[in-house]
């Protein structure tokens, strides 16, 4: 089911959590709301669920399949919600937790007991926890609780599944497994899903599309590839992973960052403005000699080779820290060690200029 959010703002006392946010979620997609804490992503999720209401404004609305649900309360919207800390019912077994949504239906709509049993067993099978049906939440591991919370949300056959930091409270290894499992589950169940995360790897790996939020606004909406390779703003570029940042200026149509002089095909209006250069660590090459490309001199400070990539920390001639990532094979050919003077050149970078004049 498609979801549409129109012009939503939300303030808590003096704090503005959302500023005029509009968003469309396509039918059947798995969408990630990605942003740092305090960026408003969880608030947006809770407004969609009906657990929070947006600031009342005539143009703001939440629509499910084109139908305005702004005034419906959470129970009427039929959404599945998975809480960050699972919120399993501690006084009920796993079985009863999953059955809860089916049992609280009005009598006329409630399924028969055998029907409820069948549905719960089906879901238990889906989450591979059939043998733990009689356990209480306190007797489960974090990953198991997470799966029970998901099954409980799916039991009411929700029109949309909302997950708040679904893997936030789990350790790295369980997280990895559950991520892949969630993706697989979504491919099987096909329910429109939104999940909130502050982990860009998680968003990029699992989601069909990613919404990057910052300070109550949406910075960019796009596929993981778009968001990663074509960040729409400095914030997105920075948030998508470690970057090197250089400060410079546009001079005679070129972007000048100290010793680095780069082509800049912006308008002439940007002349004289300050500019910032963002380069990912793996878009930098290290060489012993100047290779004709724009490059800067740097001194190797530290080499960290434990991991899938070799990380080299350097200090540029202007004293700025630079980090470079390279494959073990390339690093083997290069043969540098701490203290060496080298040249660092860029393969790819993005330049952002101030889009306003002072």
């Amino acid at each position, binding site marked *: 089911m498609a979801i549409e959010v129109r012009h939503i703002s939300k303030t808590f006392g003096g704090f503005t959590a959302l500023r005029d946010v509009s968003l469309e979620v396509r039918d059947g997609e798995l969408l990630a709301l990605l942003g740092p804490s305090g960026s408003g992503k969880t608030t947006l999720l809770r407004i969609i669920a009906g*657990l929070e209401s947006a600031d009342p404004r005539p143009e703001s609305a939440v629509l499910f399949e084109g139908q305005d649900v702004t005034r419906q309360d*959470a129970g009427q919207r039929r959404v599945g919600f998975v809480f960050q800390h699972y*919120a*399993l019912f*501690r006084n009920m077994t796993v079985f009863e937790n999953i059955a809860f949504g089916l049992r*609280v239906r009005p009598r006329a709509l409630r399924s028969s007991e055998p029907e409820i049993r069948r549905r719960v067993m089906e879901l238990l099978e889906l989450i591979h926890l059939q043998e733990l049906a009689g356990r209480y939440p306190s007797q489960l591991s974090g990953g198991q609780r997470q799966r029970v919370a998901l099954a409980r*949300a799916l039991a009411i056959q929700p029109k949309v599944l909302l997950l708040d930091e679904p893997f936030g409270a789990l350790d790295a290894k369980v997280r990895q497994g559950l991520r892949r499992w969630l993706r697989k589950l979504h491919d099987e169940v096909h329910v429109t899903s939104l999940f909130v995360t502050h982990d860009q790897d998680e968003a990029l790996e699992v989601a069909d599309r990613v919404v990057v939020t910052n300070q109550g606004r949406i910075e960019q909406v796009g596929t993981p590839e778009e968001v990663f390779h074509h960040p729409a703003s400095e914030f997105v570029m920075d948030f998508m992973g470690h970057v090197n940042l250089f400060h410079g200026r546009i001079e005679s149509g070129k972007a000048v960052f100290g010793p680095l002089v780069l082509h800049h095909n912006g308008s002439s209006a940007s002349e004289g403005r300050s500019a910032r250069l963002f380069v990912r660590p793996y878009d930098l090459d290290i060489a012993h000699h100047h290779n004709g490309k724009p490059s800067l001199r740097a001194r190797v400070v530290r080499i960290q080779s434990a991991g899938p990539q070799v990380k080299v920390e350097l200090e540029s001639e202007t004293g700025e820290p630079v980090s470079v990532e390279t494959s073990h094979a390339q690093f083997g050919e290069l043969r540098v060690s701490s203290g060496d003077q080298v040249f660092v050149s860029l393969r790819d970078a993005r330049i952002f200029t101030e889009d306003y004049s002072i």
Partner: protein
Amino acid sequence: MAHPAILGDQLSEPARRDSRREPAALRWSLTLAALGFLALFVALPLLVVFSQALQKGLAVYWAAIREPDALAAIRLTLLAAAIAVPLNLVFGLAAAWAIAKFQFRGKNVLVTLIDLPFAVSPVIAGLIFVLMFGAQGWLGPWLGRHDLEIIFAVPGIVLATVFVTFPFVARELIPLMQAQGTEEEQAALVLGAGAWQLFRRITLPNVKWSLLYGAILCTARAMGEFGAVSVVSGHIRGQTNTMPLHVEILYNEYNFAAAFAVASLLALLALVTLGVKRILEWRIRQLHRDIAALAEAGEA
């Protein structure tokens, strides 16, 4: 598992020394101090009550309890508790729910008000009721015209009992409910539960132990209350005397055997209340384990 006593004996061996443990001498002296204190202030008085009560033999004991005024006092005490405890259960649950799960203006004032009966001397509490409902009190003339008796009558005793036992349930529930938060309720809401289902299936089961514990404390205090009840009672034998008041009257009349007999009954009630609490806790925990084990066996 190392037995604490054994570990204590082995403390002289440096290799076995566990730095997290206090020296044996300190542990034993602390334990002894606690036990001694308990013996002196709890066990010994209890023993004295029972030995004094039975000093003149079972027949006298039995007669003191079966005496009509004593029976009336027992009935009144049980009646006051039977009214005060359910009232405070409802009030305590409502107040704790409001305080723990919602944000509103005046919340701190409410919390302070709930604690008031703990802070105010019970005698003062009794006096307040006399000043309000007594013949010379604010509402006295109005009550008189409508032929309603509150002070020196059963309603006054019930009122005073409700007042002094008022914080027990709420105080017991508030910290637990605050710790549990509102996420489970929110989850139930999203799953379509109505307000009553929410309360009956989520909120109430999650606090049932604290609720029971609060009710038991409340019962014990309701039956034992002296000061506030003494002020509003008027000490009319057979009519407005509760058990503690009856004990006092008998004692003042140098009728020690009878006084201690009724006192022993109060002590017994307290012991039974505590016993019930222990048994219930143990029983229901057992039940939970059984259900879990059965369900697992059933699924396997």
